């Protein structure tokens, strides 16, 4: 079992595919859940505080916008933890945790330069491509064993 980070990190479909092959999916919803459940913090709905962009300084310099650094405080530790990654290009509409294009670029870059097994695929546009898409992902994940 390896830890596989998926991109977009909000993708429940990718997370499901990862977990079906017996691996652990690293998705941002788990990080958000940790924040929401942290006792003593009261900054709803995500419980992000001004301390989070400061934690993000580990991944992006101080002159990088605070929204990027705040998102990186969630995504950065996941990237560090990842043993493998699946990156999907051409995702149509990303919002919230993936709503900032600069953060998304940095996330993809850090995953690529980490030198871990990485599968990069284009978002499928029809049923045939979707079947191939799932097949390639399964093949990649099984190969990780």
């Amino acid at each position: 079992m390896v830890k596989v980070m998926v991109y977009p990190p909000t993708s429940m479909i990718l997370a499901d595919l990862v977990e079906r092959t017996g691996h652990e999916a690293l998705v941002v919803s788990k990080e958000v859940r940790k924040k929401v459940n942290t006792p003593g913090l009261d900054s709803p709905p995500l419980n992000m505080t001004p301390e989070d962009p400061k934690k993000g300084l580990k991944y992006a310099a101080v002159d990088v916008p605070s929204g990027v650094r705040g998102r990186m405080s969630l995504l950065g530790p996941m990237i560090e933890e990842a043993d493998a990654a699946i990156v999907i290009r051409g995702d149509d509409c990303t919002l919230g945790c993936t709503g900032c294009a600069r953060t998304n670029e940095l996330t993809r870059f850090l995953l690529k330069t980490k030198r871990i097994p990485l599968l990069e695929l284009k978002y499928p546009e029809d049923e045939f491509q979707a079947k191939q898409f799932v097949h390639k992902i399964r093949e990649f994940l099984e190969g990780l064993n």
Partner: protein
Amino acid sequence: MIRIAQLSCGSEYSGVQGELEKAAEMVGAELVFPEVSLEDVRNVEERFGIKVASGDLNLAMARATRIVENPDLADAVFVATCFRCAEGAIVRSEIRKYIHENSRIPVLSYSFTERTTAETLLTRMEALVTTAKFKGLLARERQTGLTAGIDSGSTTTKAVVMRDNEVIGTGWVPTTEVIKSAEDAYNAALESAGVKKEEIQGLGTTGYGRHLVGKEFGAKLIQEEITVNSKGAVFLADAQRGEATVIDIGGMDNKAISVQDGIPGTFTMGGICAGASGRFLELTARRLGVEITELGKLAMKGDHQKVPMNSYCIVFGTQSLVNSLSAGSRPEDVAMAACHSVAEQVFEQQLQEVEVKEPVIMVGGTALIEGLPRAMEQLLGLKVMVPEYAQYIGCVGASLLVSGLVED
């Protein structure tokens, strides 16, 4: 409850969403998020004219189109993106223009960092709420009866007494102890007007010390500077109808306000560093060994192009000042370069955030430093008006507005 539509990107992840909500709550407003469908976000280019890489910015633009189509959804709009985000800055500016051009809803534009607090936003939010809530009061064009205004600023405290649409007394003192300075300025204004405090029918206060002074003096109106300065400026410049732009370079911060029929439409309040404020001009005057009141006249004889100066930071600005004097620059050129440097920063950082429409009215004590409006004219390529009593603009606005409450 005033509903302020929040069109933003990054506030949640910067950890400042709570501060935005707190600021809105402090001024009796609530932040609302107009609902849009995924299709609205996907097709934002068709309706707004642009689609960018960041989904949250597309969402903000989709919300803007929804507000324009259904103006009842919000009383005011707050557009905010992360400081230093180029994509965000472009979208923020375009949303502001879009709302301004397609509706009569007041807009506030702001770029935040993780250090943004509710207190930083308070004056801006208060102005936004006032503009949305008291349009009737703000539409007032004449001062009636005997009223007074006190402007408790960061550097100076000013007061005026007005009777039947005329300024009849003024007072001006440097701000030391807030209450004492207000008392001194108020007494001076009363004395020069030849009236007693008891005769004043209504007092309005503004400026940083407005709450403290207002409470102490039993003011009928306690109002932030953006609203009263707009009102005072268009009143004194006789530009109450139609468009106008008000620029106020203060001791601690600067305001640029786009006004329509005497009511603020879009505005910015800021000043990244003291280098862009009246403080830098004070420091320049001191270094040149002239009174601040003489700096403007000296500057008018100078040429800013002969002295390289960038007072983006007051420390570096002072360094440029000292270096140029040591290199043999003429004091008049240095004085004009300082005025130009301050004007340039306001032009670059703030006037790009509002619609600059004529007449351009410069107010506040710094407007009397002749070199500053001249430098602004050169940068804008437009004539800049400095009305009589420009330094008393806040007090005049407060005095004018409070007369509406007295009548009521």
